[in-house]
């Protein structure tokens, strides 16, 4: 197996890496680029812990080959805050106690960010179905849904 050279943009930075043809984007992020905020819960696209945003769409990075990242734009949890300023979703997740163990949190934040970019005012049902690919075993989802609703309201300028 020969390595493949890949040039991509990750969190606004130009990133180049070499990868094997069977390495996933998740493997690359975690093992080659040190971006370990993206988590592996299953490796088969069933838990959403590895959610990242690729060209504006949220995807499971375990189901993307590293080689496919060529020429793409990728956002991970490490790029979500603007310097020391947390994204409203990040802040609301903490405020609403929307995380317990926190392993699913980066994936939820990526997915929720993608949601609010296409739908700034989602209903509870829309939030629940959009996030159905992100498993959380601690919270029962209640506080996660509330945090997303509250962050959406703040981004729309409706609350503090």
């Amino acid at each position: 197996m020969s390595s493949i050279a890949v040039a991509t943009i990750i969190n606004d930075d130009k990133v180049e890496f070499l990868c094997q043809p069977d390495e996933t984007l998740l493997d690359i992020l975690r093992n080659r680029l040190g971006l370990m905020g993206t988590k592996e819960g299953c490796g088969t696209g069933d838990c959403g812990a590895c959610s990242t945003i690729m060209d504006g769409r949220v995807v499971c990075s375990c189901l993307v080959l590293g080689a496919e990242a060529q020429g793409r734009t990728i956002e991970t949890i490490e790029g979500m805050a603007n310097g020391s300023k947390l994204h409203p979703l990040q802040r609301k997740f903490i405020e609403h106690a929307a995380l317990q163990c926190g392993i699913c949190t980066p994936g939820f934040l990526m997915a929720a960010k993608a949601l609010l970019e296409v739908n700034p005012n989602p209903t509870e049902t829309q939030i629940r179905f959009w996030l159905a690919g992100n498993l959380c075993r601690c919270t029962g989802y209640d506080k996660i849904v509330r945090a997303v609703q509250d962050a959406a309201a703040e981004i729309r300028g409706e609350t503090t």
Partner: protein
Amino acid sequence: MRYERPDTMQAATALLAGAEAKSFVLAGGTDLLVRMQNDDFEADLIVDIKAISGMAKVTETDDGFVIGAGVPSVALFEDTALVAAWPGVVEAANLIGSTQIQGRCTIVGNLCNASPAADSVPALVAAGAVAQVAGPSGTRDVAVIDIPTGPGKTSLAKGEIIQAILLPKPNARTGDAYLRFIPRTEMDIAVVGVAVNLTLNEDGTVIAARVALGAVGPKVILVDTAAKAVIGSKLEDVVLQALSESCSAACTPINDKRGTVAFRTQVAGVLARRAAQTAYTRAGGK
């Protein structure tokens, strides 16, 4: 293992035709990468077709819609003309997996994976969709129903790639719908799937019908008896009952971790009735 990303369909089919051992086409990757996680997976070649021009586009033509093999399901939903024409096909495609999967998975991949439970396949079959197959010696059109031949198996020859799905322009007063049963509200594989496509005349009588079932046999089933049961009717209760019974009768399911024979058979009939009512309404029936 090699990863190739050819620019042309000729190059892609040539790569596949020339491969010495196992080779795979990569579009959305949502099935292929899952298989790659398996310790027993071995492949010599993966051909990523997304760099080939036209793969990522839905094109509306005089005859209908051409859906490229690289179009993710979510993009179908974003195409308003397609949603208006074939809402059942789009809703079926949008039931595949999570939001994350939606951003990657394709209906061509869903078809080629040849799972009996594929969500989009019954809807495509009910809609009369055609697969445009490219091969080393040119292209050919194949009815979608003739692509899968059994669980995990297709009629595609070595070197062949489905480059697009062709959906016709629906006739006037046509409506389609797809319903599936899953234990949860999301993230499951269909235990039963039913697609219904109806065309009505001006007084609301069904003049054409196609009813297709998924996950109740080794491949998708087109149920002629169900179509016959509804043609000439306005979906009166007794007709719906007949539709329901003919669908249940057409099932040849298995017991497995996802459902029992009895459950699948019974629920196929229930969903057929419900899908038919939705399709009828969408076709303008009252």
